[in-house]
């Protein structure tokens, strides 16, 4: 049986369908990333799965129970990181975790959780003086202290610097080896690519793609060649077959279809003639971002980690 099952899930606010008749199942132990632009229905879906919001129509089962009716025992098996940090500033990190830990039948030791989220050095620091990234990791620590079977993470790394984000990823990755089912909403495609077994892409309240990151990339098209041109003026000297693939700003050569080997041969000849090295060249399947944009019809603006 699945850890999570949603059937014909719908949430309407007046005329607006925030989530529009979506169905999916998540097997136990799977890590699912939910991607989509603002207003796609990611958080509304998550809030229905967590039991905060009642669906207008459809059914949800999380660990075999309706989240709206889940009692203490059910909640003891669920961990969640809300979209915004919600902690009392006055307590220390260790005291906060100790307080939450005692709610569970078999909590992880506070020290172990602090190690997991890389906050061992801040155990006696008041939450109120932590940085935004550190507070977010306290959120993650609270979510995992009860050894949850299902973990809901709503944009857990939004606003974190790249280093803090990678530390948080490492902590979350460690959880997956214990068989925890994870549902993550994120704006960062790189995050989904690094962590998830499966990606659900939402847009306009519906699921427009449901695949593994690899499958999604494959759907995004054939292998491609990407080369950042050292100078935009060099585009003029490219052979005609390559020049047609230069981006409008003249900075990048992107060849998404055709014979990759032939394109590389031409590119190497051109670089040799102009005494340029090909530092920065990338050859491979489309990035998950390109695949995402292809799945979404290329019309959706999604943040990438490089914009963060």
């Amino acid at each position, binding site marked *: 049986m699945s850890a999570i099952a949603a059937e014909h899930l719908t949430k309407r*606010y007046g005329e607006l369908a925030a989530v529009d008749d979506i169905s999916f199942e998540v097997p136990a132990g799977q890590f699912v990333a939910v991607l*989509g632009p603002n207003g796609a*229905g990611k958080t509304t879906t998550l809030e229905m799965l967590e039991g905060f919001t009642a669906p207008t129509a459809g059914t949800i089962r999380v660990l075999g129970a309706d989240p709206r009716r889940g009692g203490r025992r059910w909640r003891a098996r669920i961990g969640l990181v809300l*979209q*915004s940090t919600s902690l009392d500033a*006055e307590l220390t990190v260790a005291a906060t975790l100790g307080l939450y830990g*005692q709610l*569970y039948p078999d909590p992880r030791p506070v020290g172990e959780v602090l190690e997991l989220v890389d906050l061992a050095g801040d155990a006696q620091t008041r939450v109120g003086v932590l940085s935004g990234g550190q507070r977010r990791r306290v959120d993650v620590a609270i979510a995992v202290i009860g050894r949850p079977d299902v973990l809901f993470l709503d944009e857990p790394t939004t606003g974190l610097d790249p280093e803090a984000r990678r530390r948080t990823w490492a902590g979350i990755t460690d959880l997956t080896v214990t068989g925890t089912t994870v549902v993550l909403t994120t704006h960062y495609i790189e995050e989904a690519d690094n962590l998830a077994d499966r990606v659900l892409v939402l847009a306009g309240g519906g699921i427009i793609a449901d695949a593994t990151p690899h499958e999604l990339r494959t759907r995004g098209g054939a292998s491609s060649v990407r080369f950042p041109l050292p100078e935009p003026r060099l585009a003029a000297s490219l052979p005609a077959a390559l020049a047609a693939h230069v981006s409008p700003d003249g900075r990048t050569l992107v060849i998404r279809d055709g014979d990759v080997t032939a394109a590389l041969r031409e590119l190497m000849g051109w670089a040799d003639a102009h005494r340029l090295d090909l530092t920065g060249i990338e050859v491979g399947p489309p990035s998950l971002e390109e695949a995402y944009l292809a799945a979404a019809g290329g019309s959706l*603006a999604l943040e990438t980690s490089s914009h963060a």
Partner: protein
Amino acid sequence: MPDGTRAADAWRPLPNAATLLAAQVGYQFRLLLATPSALVIGVGLPVVLLVVGNARHGGGGAANVAGYAVFGLTMTAWNTHGVRLVAARELGILRRWRAAPLPPWCYFAGRIIATSLFATLAALVTLLAGVLFDGVSLSAGATLSVLPVLVLGSLAWAAASTVMSSVVPGTGAASPAFLLTYFPVVLVSGVLGPLSGEPHWLTTLASYLPAEPVIDTVGRALRHVPVFSAHDLLVLAAWVIVGLAVASARFRWEPYRPAQHRSARQHHPQERPAGQPG
């Protein structure tokens, strides 16, 4: 494993509710101790008013000391409790607790009990200041006999404040809303000084509000006359029972979401307003 998860772990016994309630009371009490405004309003302000008033006009006597003690108690149980509750709801702290495996009544009760203990202690500190600076005296026996009334009064105000918090939309409106409803009640009840010449209907009304019964009881203890009054205890008990019943029925865990956010989203589905789920 019926749902493919660690079912063996799932059936370990949950911690008992009494332990969780005690932990919640301790936690909320520590938060109050660590909140400077709670200390200033509950303890600092009444003691300063008492000492300054004493310096200007000489000892104000039992009625003044009782009034200032109840001022600290009610400011803590009404204003501090209510404003902090609204802030916790707005910040999503209540939502996080609602999602935790804690019986909802444990959080609710823990918060009210901790506030009541803090408010009672604040009143006792002011009484001590009255003994030290105002020349009133209070025996250990009288202190013990007045304690249940202080606790009952604190519970009544905290319960009423919890009810009030459910209709205050956010922190921006919290202080004005709580202070505007607070001062008329405490002024007609004689918290900030004994009244004289007020109409009969007003004195009758004040006797059924939750401030005057506490002032009267503390005043009797300071004047060394019998403390017990069935009327005062019944009024306070009624406020506690009705207040807790209404508060538990109306308690809101979720932050207030203005309706205009939804309409904004309908017009611009790609632009999510702050705090609005996507």
